[in-house]
């Protein structure tokens, strides 16, 4: 593709006045596309690139709330590298994301397969499945907070009434109990999104493929492995990317349930960043924690995009 403005030798452009070059750009058909893109680019730069860039810049300063900082280089990162609370939060975030995403995927896929069958009251059941997703996170978090309460937990109470335990379960007061409890709450909330999206994917699979496979004597597992799964991978790639991103950056659930406690055992990078930046006023350090999330997120996107998108048309080739 020829682009006269770009390919013009430097000697020639210098010879002409600036005004003519600008006039040329204004009307050049090669630049027309660029002018059409300007509004969208403006929005993206203003609302995405600028805040992101500002966050990264803040992480290299010692800015506090209400006071401008000075450039301190990598000082924030050096401090975080030796901060055990920060590493705990990294560990928690990875554990939380891995376990919760895997669980959400398995349960979501199972639910989707189930809902794809001919059930009585199918439409109603499908709508019901969405409920955890519709309820505002803070509300469901408060519900879970009561369920996990140290004194008034419904689970502890029921088990005590049944005589199975003799003291309340310390859901949020014990390090590992708290981690599993928050993961469970996240899974509960995240499953419907995955189930419904995968269900939509399942419905695009042509029934004739299953018919043909059945005639060839394929078992249900073989039908799943060789028809459903390959045709579902593009949807899985998209849905898991979103799921991992949402889980990795989860904030509300943890904040409402534990505030990162007990003793920072459930602090995620997002909650720790908020606590340090906004509550404690150390904007620079909080920004460094947020910035430290970026490589993890890029890696997650990379894996989902290039690992799961194995079909040619997804990478721009023809699908033959």
């Amino acid at each position: 593709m020829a682009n006269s403005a770009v390919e013009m030798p430097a000697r020639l452009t210098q010879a002409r006045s600036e005004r003519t070059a600008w006039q040329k750009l204004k009307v050049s058909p090669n630049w027309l596309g660029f002018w059409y893109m300007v509004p969208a680019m403006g929005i993206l730069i203003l609302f995405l690139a600028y805040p992101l860039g500002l966050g990264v810049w803040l992480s290299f300063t010692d800015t506090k709330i209400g006071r401008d900082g000075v450039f301190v280089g990598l000082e924030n990162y050096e401090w975080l590298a030796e901060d055990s609370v920060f590493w705990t939060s990294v560990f928690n975030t990875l554990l939380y994301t891995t376990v919760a995403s895997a669980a959400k995927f398995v349960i979501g896929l199972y639910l989707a397969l189930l809902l794809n069958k001919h059930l009585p009251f199918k439409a109603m059941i499908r709508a019901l499945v969405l409920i955890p997703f519709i309820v505002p996170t803070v509300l469901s978090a408060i519900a879970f907070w009561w369920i996990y309460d140290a004194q008034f937990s419904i689970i502890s109470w029921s088990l005590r009434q049944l005589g199975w335990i003799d003291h309340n379960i310390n859901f949020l007061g014990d390090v590992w109990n708290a981690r599993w409890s928050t993961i469970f709450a996240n899974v509960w909330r995240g499953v419907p999104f995955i189930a419904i999206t995968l269900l939509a994917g399942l419905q695009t699979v042509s029934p004739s493929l299953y018919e043909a496979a059945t005639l060839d004597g394929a078992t249900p597992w073989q039908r799943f492995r060789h028809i459903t799964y390959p045709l579902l991978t593009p949807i899985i790639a998209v849905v898991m990317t979103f799921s991992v991103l949402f889980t990795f950056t989860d904030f509300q659930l943890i904040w409402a349930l534990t505030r990162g406690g007990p003793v920072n055992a459930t602090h995620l990078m997002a909650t720790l960043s908020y606590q340090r930046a906004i509550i404690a006023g150390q904007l620079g350090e909080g920004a460094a924690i947020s910035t430290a999330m970026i490589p993890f997120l890029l890696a997650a996107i990379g894996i989902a995009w290039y690992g799961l998108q194995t079909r040619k048309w997804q990478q721009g080739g023809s699908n033959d």
Partner: protein
Amino acid sequence: MDLNRRSLIKGGAALGLGGSTNLLAYAKAWAQASPFKVEPNAKINLMRWKRFVEAEDVAFMQLVAAFEAATGAKVNVTNESYDDLQPKASVVANTGQGLDLVWGLYSLPHLFPQKCMDLSDVSKYLGEKHGGWAPSAELYGKLGGKWIGIPIAASGALMNYRISSMNKAGFKEFPKDTAGFLELCKALKANNTPAGMAFGHASGDANTWIHWMLWSHGGNLVDKNNKVIINSPETAKALEYSKALYDTFIPGTASWNDSSNNKAFLAGELHATVNGISVYVAAKKEKPEMAADMNHAYMPIGPVGKPTELHLPFTMLAFQFTKVPNACKAFIAFMLDAPQYNPWIGAAQGYLSHFLGEYDKNPVWTADPKTTPFGDIAKRTLTPAGLGTLGENAAAAIADFVVVDMFANYVTGREDIKGAMAGAERQAKRIYR
């Protein structure tokens, strides 16, 4: 008689008006005499902490209405919970618009002192008029030679206990020293009527009682030059004491937030805790028999031999960028004037204690002896900075739960004494660099 909803509303409005006519006349006179002349058509955006005692809120809104009527200013009040108030105020401080007055928790003005308006004239006016400020008011309100906030009132964090459970545990009166308090907690646990205090990230409850524990044993986060001295034998003693206490507590206190002990106490599961008077106020309304069996006591005195309490002052600040500085000053002065302040802290039923000497005489502190200990809050409270100067460092250390996490790390067995102290020391040094 045709009694419908509309006539009821009318009647109610007439009643309300009748009650406030005097207040209005007085308010107008006050506005005339006040040294702070409200700007014409002033609009004040005020954010305050969300009420814990309903009657207090009602009285506060009456006060706001009287101010509006007297001065022609409009006051727009937003309520935020403890934990949301500070982040919102911080954002406003950074963006420079949205609010004029913020009524927040202890160290709030010190988190962004450059953004706070100088209120020295207001404090001088009030101090001279109302019997002088308690010494702690100066610690909370002043930075350098300047008042950056006016401490309006404080909420006490004192011992709440059930009298019958204490008697059954073999104590006639509430122990006055830390050793006696530990004995009481042990006996309470043995009787299955346990005590419990928050070790979780509870901004109010955990910070107040855990700082008491640290200071009562002579430990301190920083010395008077803001040098970090948390890693000390005294801190170690406080940690050992906390572990002994924790072992007697009701299970689950490591996960507690600010409301957990209120709920457990009112449900009859918890028999001693550190809290404001809100449990008692709620009990009086919902469970009179529990209220009759409740009482309050000062925090026990530790090896250092003097009171080491930390309470929750509510300080009001005005932003420097406000367009109506005089209206802000006038509002603060109006709030703390006797005809407003007396009924208002009366309505708060002991939840709010005064910083100005004149209000020692308020009947709320004597009508019910169970509220009496809360009358001395301003005289007894230290600041979250301990020996150091209250400033953004101290505010950050409190907000990041440095001391709370040190204790929680040790009592839950995540770290030994040395590790817990070293971790807190490292964090504190960073904050106080």
